[in-house]
């Protein structure tokens, strides 16, 4: 786990032979790789070590403080979520260090019977299909953009690049009226399709840039053998694209899991995900701290687990998306 984030320069993983087809057809993120790895070794050079000695103590202290600064707010949420409302109203969560006996899982137990449980499942029902659909649809389009010739391909891809940063606000009103006409307003399907559409530009961009790095010899061989395009896609390109697909998958999952705005507009109360449910409790923040803190903490556990488990892909996806 420690290794990847330490060397964010590592490639978004390329197909084994990517470098060796001799055509310089390297996916964006792979470009940064050689420099990143090379630089690792001489880093702890003489000068570096000297500086370590001189400023080491002060830097250590500052970094510990900064680390605490980033960690403590979340820790606060955890402690608050494990104390009763009365205790939370009376004193700050940091008094827990002198009164550890006040910890309770009562808030979480109460949450189980409430509307939160339903909203948790709605989040799952929205997130999982969205992620699968985005990966499938984007991979097909990316394959066409990377390895098929058709008129207007480059222009079409530039449109995709342009759509990368379209604010979703632009589609809220028009899609709401479309859904109204199609009787889809408030449904999970409506939320999912909206997410899929707005997830596609990034997904197509990421995968297309990865797919063009696949050695053409592999595809040409398959085409010579008379394999259908679908077969090439399903049995050559898709498997080779796994690392990029993993990056995309984790990004897409977190993005949808954590979304609030789309849910706010398109999901009705019966289909609302956690974010919308918790938002509806915000109005009485003071009296709802028990629900809000435990709910917010539950909502972030799965993203955190995914993040720690797959942070290599997370970082790689980010690099591939940004460092162009």
């Amino acid at each position, binding site marked *: 786990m420690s290794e990847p984030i330490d060397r964010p320069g590592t490639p978004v993983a390329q197909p084994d032979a990517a470098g060796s087809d001799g055509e310089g057809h390297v996916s964006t993120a792979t470009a940064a790789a050689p420099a990143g790895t090379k630089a690792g070794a001489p880093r702890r050079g003489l000068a570096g070590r000297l500086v370590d000695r001189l400023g080491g103590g002060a830097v250590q202290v500052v970094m510990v403080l900064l680390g605490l600064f980033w960690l403590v707010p979340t820790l606060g949420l955890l402690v608050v979520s494990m104390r009763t409302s009365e205790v939370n109203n009376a004193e700050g969560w940091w008094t827990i260090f002198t009164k550890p006996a006040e910890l309770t899982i009562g808030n979480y137990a109460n949450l189980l019977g409430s509307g939160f449980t339903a909203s948790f499942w709605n989040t799952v029902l929205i997130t999982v299909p969205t992620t699968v659909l985005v990966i499938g649809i984007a991979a097909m389009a990316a394959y066409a953009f990377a390895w098929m*010739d058709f008129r207007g391909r480059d222009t079409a891809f530039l449109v995709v690049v342009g759509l990368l940063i379209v604010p979703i606000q632009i589609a809220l009103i028009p899609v709401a009226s479309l859904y109204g006409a199609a009787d889809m307003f408030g449904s999970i399907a409506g939320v999912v399709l909206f997410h899929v559409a707005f997830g596609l530009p990034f997904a197509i961009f990421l995968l297309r840039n990865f797919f063009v790095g696949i050695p053409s010899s592999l595809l040409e061989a398959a085409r010579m053998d008379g394999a259908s395009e679908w077969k090439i896609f399903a049995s050559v390109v898709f498997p080779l694209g796994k690392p990029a697909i993993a990056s995309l998958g984790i990004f897409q999952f977190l993005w949808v899991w954590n979304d609030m705005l789309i849910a706010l507009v398109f999901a009705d109360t019966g289909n609302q995900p956690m974010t919308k449910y918790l938002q509806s409790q915000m109005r009485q923040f003071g009296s709802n701290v028990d629900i809000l803190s435990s709910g917010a903490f539950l909502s972030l556990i799965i993203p955190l687990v995914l993040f720690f488990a797959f942070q290599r892909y997370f970082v790689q996806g980010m690099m591939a998306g940004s460092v162009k």
Partner: protein
Amino acid sequence: MTERLDGPQDPPADVAGGPSTGPAETPQRKRRLGPSPAVAIAFLLPAALLLGIWVIYPIVYSVFRSLFDATGTGFVGLGNYTTIFSDAGTLTTIRNNLIWVVVAPIVVTTIGLIFAVLTERIRWATAFKLIVFMPMAVSLMAAGVIFRLVYEESPDKGLANAVLTTVHDTFSSSQGYPEARPRGGDQSPVADQGGAVVTKQPAQAGQPVLVPIVGVKPELLPGDAQPAKAPAAGDGLSGTVWFDFTPGGGGTNNAVDGAEKGLPGMTVEAVRDGQVAATATTAEDGSFSFAGLPAGSYVVRLPASNFEAAYGGLSWLGPTLITPAIIGAFVWVWAGFAMVLIAAGLAAIPRDALEAARIDGATEWQVFRRITVPLLSPVLLVVFVTMIINTLKVFDLVFIIAPASVQPQANVVALEMWRVSFGGGNNQGLGSALAIFLLILVLPFMIMNIRRFRREDT
């Protein structure tokens, strides 16, 4: 969440580290033997349909919708756009967005750079990076709840104010008796002087000083206050500060009566010729004495700080500080993104250049300023531009952190768009205009993306 994860989506600039970007995608596409266009269309169809219906059609629709009024029937031309720039509420949102765009990207990029450089100096860099990067995985909704707790007004509940008051009280201790004042009238031995309380007559050792105070709020009288004692005539300069008020009536003004309480924690100064010669603090019974003071006559003064309210920190969630407070939460979320990208750029810098400069006698600062930063500038630009786009779209954090009563002061364009069209405003004409306005704001970056991509890819 949206604005958060599409950050990484944008590929605004090229780069990470100079040398390796070179071999872009080039030749070879021509040699592909391709399938028929029909097959290509089949592969593209699902994506094209989704993008067409959910993204492209809405852009066109919004342009038209923005020219009509709330009901969608009356054509108003550019009326909605005029409203954006004339209505006080929307002007506030524009002003706030401006503050966001000016402040947040610079802060995030700077912090990311500092963190990236500092992590090279510690052994537990991986752990540090994970901690700082972690908020990226958390929903902005949860981050909002986290910071709502941090910013609670009461120092007993909100972490930010707890830290502030602790730091403040370490450096200046004031018990805090707001609105308390000296007893007035000719008989009173003390008088108000610019907020401070001073004795009318100079005091000398052996003559106890009486400082009668009135107007102390009962709830601010410390629990440990003891009945005041008339000071005994001792050797040094001493006296009593007390609450000259007998509950239930009775008692003599300007004299210490049995039931009257001393005022502990008052700072008392002995002043001679305008100079503070000694400082003392009153005890639980309100008595004070200056030890080791040279003989002579002094004016006894209770400085104004005694009469200020106890420091309670800042009201983060109030109308004035709300935007900076939310920007603070935004920085907390995004610093990790900046740090990881910049650290990658840093790792790609050829070490030889740095070593050579050091051997030539350059200081660490010079190396940083003249070599590291210029070589990093492409990455810094990527981070900076990504942050600009994200600040333009900021929504969740403002919506969650700002309490309902301060939302008008914290409002931003993206939130106003939602509020106007769905959150009660019910004016989809104005909402569409705001959405188009938002699109126009990010348009330059969209064009930048396309041009850069074209240059690199073809």
